[in-house]
C-alpha cells in the first residue's frame, strides 16, 4: 500500500509520464542484455541517478519489496545446490545471482515511476497512446481500479474482522477462504451495479475531457536516455 504516488517537485515529477515510461522500458531491455558484473555496475549507478532524480529512497523501496526476498535469494541458492559432493557449486549460482540483482534494479526504477506519476496522468497517457475505444476502455478501467481498490480492501478487512469477532478464526482455512470469497464477491458485484447506474446517470461517454499532457524540452534528457539505453541494448544483443 505504501508504494504509491507522492506529490513533489523533483525532476521525475515534472517529466511527461510517456517519457518516464520509455525510460523504464528501455532500462528493462538494457538490463536483460547486460546482465554481466560490469553491466550491472553501470546500471546500478544509473539506477542511483534515476532514484535521486525521482526523490525516491532505496531503503523505503526495499522495505516495500521485502516479500520478494525469498525468491531473489532462493533462485541462486537452489541452482547452486547439487546432489552429492561438493553439494554447492558456486559457478552454477553466479548467473542466477546476477539475474536476481538485475530484478532488484528494475524494481527500483519502476518504483521511481510509481512514486512520481499521478494516476490521472497515467490514464491520460494510456488513452493517448492506445487508440480508439480499446484505449478508452483501458483508461477508464484503470482509473476505476485505482478508485475501488482501497474500498474493496476495506470491505475484505471488515469481513475478516467480523469473522474473527465471531470466532471465525478458529474455523479451517477452507471455510475461512470460502466465506471471505463469497462475501467479497457479493459486495464487489453490488458495488459494480451501483457504479454502472451512477455512470449512466452522469452520461458516461467514450470521449470525456482529459488533463493536458505535454512532451516538452525538459523531457529531452529522459527521451535521450531511453534512446541511448535501447541503442546500447541493441548493440549488445547483436
Amino acid at each position: 500500500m505504501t508504494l504509491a504516488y507522492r506529490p513533489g517537485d523533483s525532476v521525475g515529477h515534472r517529466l511527461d509520464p510517456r517519457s518516464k515510461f520509455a525510460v523504464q522500458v528501455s532500462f528493462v531491455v538494457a538490463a536483460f542484455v547486460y546482465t554481466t558484473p560490469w553491466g550491472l555496475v553501470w546500471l546500478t549507478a544509473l539506477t542511483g541517478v534515476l532514484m535521486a532524480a525521482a526523490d525516491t529512497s532505496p531503503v523505503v523501496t526495499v522495505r516495500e519489496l521485502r516479500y520478494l526476498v525469498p525468491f531473489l535469494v532462493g533462485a541462486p541458492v537452489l541452482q547452486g545446490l547439487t546432489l552429492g559432493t561438493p553439494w554447492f557449486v558456486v559457478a552454477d549460482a553466479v548467473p542466477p545471482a546476477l539475474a536476481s540483482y538485475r530484478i532488484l534494479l528494475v524494481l527500483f526504477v519502476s518504483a521511481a515511476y510509481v512514486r512520481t506519476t499521478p494516476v490521472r496522468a497515467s490514464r491520460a497517457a494510456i488513452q493517448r497512446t492506445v487508440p480508439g475505444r480499446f484505449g478508452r476502455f483501458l483508461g477508464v478501467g484503470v482509473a476505476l481500479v485505482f478508485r475501488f481498490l482501497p474500498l474493496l480492501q476495506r470491505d475484505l478487512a471488515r469481513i475478516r474482522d467480523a469473522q474473527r469477532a465471531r470466532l471465525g478464526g478458529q474455523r479451517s482455512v477452507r471455510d475461512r477462504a470460502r466465506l471471505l470469497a463469497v462475501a467479497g464477491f457479493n459486495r464487489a458485484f453490488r458495488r459494480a451495479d451501483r457504479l454502472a447506474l451512477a455512470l449512466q446517470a452522469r452520461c458516461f461517454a467514450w470521449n470525456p475531457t482529459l488533463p493536458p499532457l505535454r512532451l516538452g524540452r525538459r523531457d529531452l534528457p529522459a527521451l535521450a536516455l531511453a534512446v541511448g539505453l535501447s541503442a546500447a541494448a541493441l548493440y549488445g544483443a547483436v
Partner: protein
Amino acid sequence: MSDTTTSDVDLVGDETTLNIARAALLAALTGAFAIVGSIPIPFSPVPFTLQVLGVFLAGLLLGPVWGAASMLLYLVAGAVGAPVFAGGSAGIGVLAGQTGGYLFSYPVAAAAAGYLAHGGSELTDLRVVPPIRPLAGMTAAIVIIYALGTAQFAFVNDVGLVEALTLASLPFIPGDVFKMFIALVLIRSGSLNEHVLPK
C-alpha cells in the same frame, strides 16, 4: 484566447457500461485479494492468497471476453502503479520480473476458463451446466498460468526449468486446486450468479 473545442458526446451503451463496471471491480477485487485476502498457513512460507480465485471467477462469471478484459485491466493498473500485485507491489518491474509470467497469463487463463465453462462466448447459467465444464475450464486456466509462469521464472532468473518448477510452481499447486473447488462451490451455490445473469 479560448482553448475550447466542441464535439458530440458519444455515450457508452447500458450493457457495456455494466460490463466495464464489473470488469473494473473484479480487477480491483483481484488486487485486493493480493494483500488483504492472504491467510497465513502454519508451517508454510507461502501465504494462501485468493488472487487466482479472482482469475477463475472473472472467467466464469463475466465470460471469456469480459473476464479477459477484467484481467487485462488488472495488469495495466498494476503496471502504471496500482498496488495490486502480490504483497501490494506495482510497476512494470514486477511484470518484467521473475513472477511476471504468472501475471501475464491471467487474461489468457480467464478467457480459457470462461470459454470452456460456458461452451462459447455466450453466458450460460453455471448452476445447471454439468460441473465438469467449469472444472475443465479452471484446469486449463491453471495449466496456462503455470506454463507461462514457470517459463518466465526460468528465463528471468536464468535457472533451469526443473529448478523453476520446484521453487515457483510446485508449492502453489495444492492451494490452487483447492481454490478451484472453492470457485466451483461458489458458482454452484448460485449466490453470485444472480448478479450477472439476465433477470
